[in-house]
């Protein structure tokens, strides 16, 4: 069966606390933390971008897969912060990792679900016998305007997954995608920051698509929430995924391991994929995982995975996601943060 043969994540070392942002704008930190359920978020270093994050995550995936990179036939990076408007992120990655030049490369964009989109296409290529292995990545250095609610959540990180048919770590049992035209969040060409529809991003967008995809995925599979050891959903803030999961019938305990948003923020295309890596780090053979992403615009991709015996052999071969989240942290003040994120203009 087709499944994940290698996975890896990357979390930058830099952080900013929600309290630091709240004090800059005079916001009530107690209300912010209670409303968003977030304590801090990751910030990319000055020399980090979607490409460097994708490569760091993909190298960790390759360590766990233990395959010849030349056998990877497709590389897809999903992001809404590709460094170039015109010039692919994936070309840098293939040359950095010794993949190709006989490889199909594309950059995807679908707000926060571009990563699961890359996973879905990579998985489909292997399932169709187009190639032996395919790599799907979600990575972002997300943007949030100064003073906007998004500034508390927009963060940086990524996750990479190599799909194949041999030595599989987690089988893909079922998939489903659910999409409609919904203008809940967007960024026009040449604009630095996205705009959003405020409360319209909730029920008509996030919950409609994520719950629509999740409920059909359960129906397709004939499974019920209690059949799963773990569940992970797109994490734009702390509250939304917990509410969505409970609506579908999942418990807090099932969602705990993949719920990384309180320490990481919303890594956009890397959000639910990074949560999935945190689950794969500790999942036991035979356990099932339920995952549904969400991307504004809007749509959701759903996956059901089943961990295989091989997973236990590779979990320690690369850094684990929660170890990176709880590992080295370099906290920034707000001035440093806006300089790192290029939110202020310096003199030449």
């Amino acid at each position, binding site marked *: 069966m087709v499944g994940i043969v290698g996975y890896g994540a990357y979390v930058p070392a830099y952080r900013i606390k929600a309290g630091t942002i709240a004090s800059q704008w005079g916001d009530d930190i107690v209300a912010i933390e209670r409303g968003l359920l977030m304590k801090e978020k990751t910030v990319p270093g000055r*020399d980090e971008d979607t490409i*460097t994050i994708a490569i760091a995550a993909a190298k960790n995936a390759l360590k766990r897969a233990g395959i010849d990179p030349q056998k990877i036939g497709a590389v897809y990076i999903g992001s809404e912060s590709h460094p*170039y408007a015109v010039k692919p992120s994936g070309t*840098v990655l293939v*040359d*950095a990792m010794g993949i190709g030049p006989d490889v199909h490369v594309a950059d995807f964009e679908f707000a926060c679900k571009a990563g699961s989109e890359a996973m879905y296409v990579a998985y489909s290529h292997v399932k169709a016998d187009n190639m032996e292995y395919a790599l799907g990545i979600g990575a972002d250095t997300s943007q949030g305007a100064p003073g906007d609610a998004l500034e508390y959540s927009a963060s940086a990180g990524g996750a990479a997954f190599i799909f194949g048919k041999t030595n599989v770590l987690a089988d893909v049992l079922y998939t489903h995608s659910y999409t409609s035209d919904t203008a809940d969040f967007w960024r026009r060409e040449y604009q630095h920051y996205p705009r959003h529809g405020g409360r319209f991003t909730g029920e008509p967008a996030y919950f409609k698509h994520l719950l629509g995809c999740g409920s059909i995925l359960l129906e397709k599979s004939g499974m019920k929430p209690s059949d799963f050891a773990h569940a992970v959903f797109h994490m734009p803030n702390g509250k939304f995924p917990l509410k969505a999961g409970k609506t579908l019938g999942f418990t807090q305990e099932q969602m705990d391991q993949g719920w990384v948003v309180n320490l990481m923020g919303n890594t956009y295309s890397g959000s639910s994929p990074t949560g999935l890596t945190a689950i794969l780090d500790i999942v036991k053979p035979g356990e099932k995982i339920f995952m549904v992403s969400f991307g504004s615009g809007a749509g959701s991709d759903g996956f059901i995975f089943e961990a295989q015996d091989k997973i236990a052999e590779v979990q320690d071969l690369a850094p684990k996601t929660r170890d990176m989240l709880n590992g080295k942290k*370099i906290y920034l003040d707000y001035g440093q943060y806006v300089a790192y994120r290029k939110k202020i203009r310096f003199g030449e």
Partner: protein
Amino acid sequence: MAISPRYSREIPHRYRLEATKFKSGKVYLPTRYICPETGDREFEKITLNGTGTILSYTIIHIASDAYAKQTPFAIAIVETDEGARLTTQVVDCKEDELKIGSRVELIFRKVMEEGDAGIINYGYKAILI
């Protein structure tokens, strides 16, 4: 770096740490085609494993324009496990964490941007391990 043809030419060593190893055992990164010590022209290409040790370092407080906003930052001479000696930035650490003899890993990062409209130069930097 700085122009597209040179940037493309340097991809093997900057992206993948491809080095040259001469018969004498000397290893060089960036690549050399004549060994500066022996004059030897016969070499094999090897890929460095990406770990090494800091031989010396300094902190840059006044930098060229492309790096001016990053000051202060650390530059080190690193000897890789294969014996190549290279100069690189050491990032994601504070000055008081750096020591001669510290072990480092070479990671893939953005090295410089050619202004807001030019190409972005990627390559290796070091982090403490």
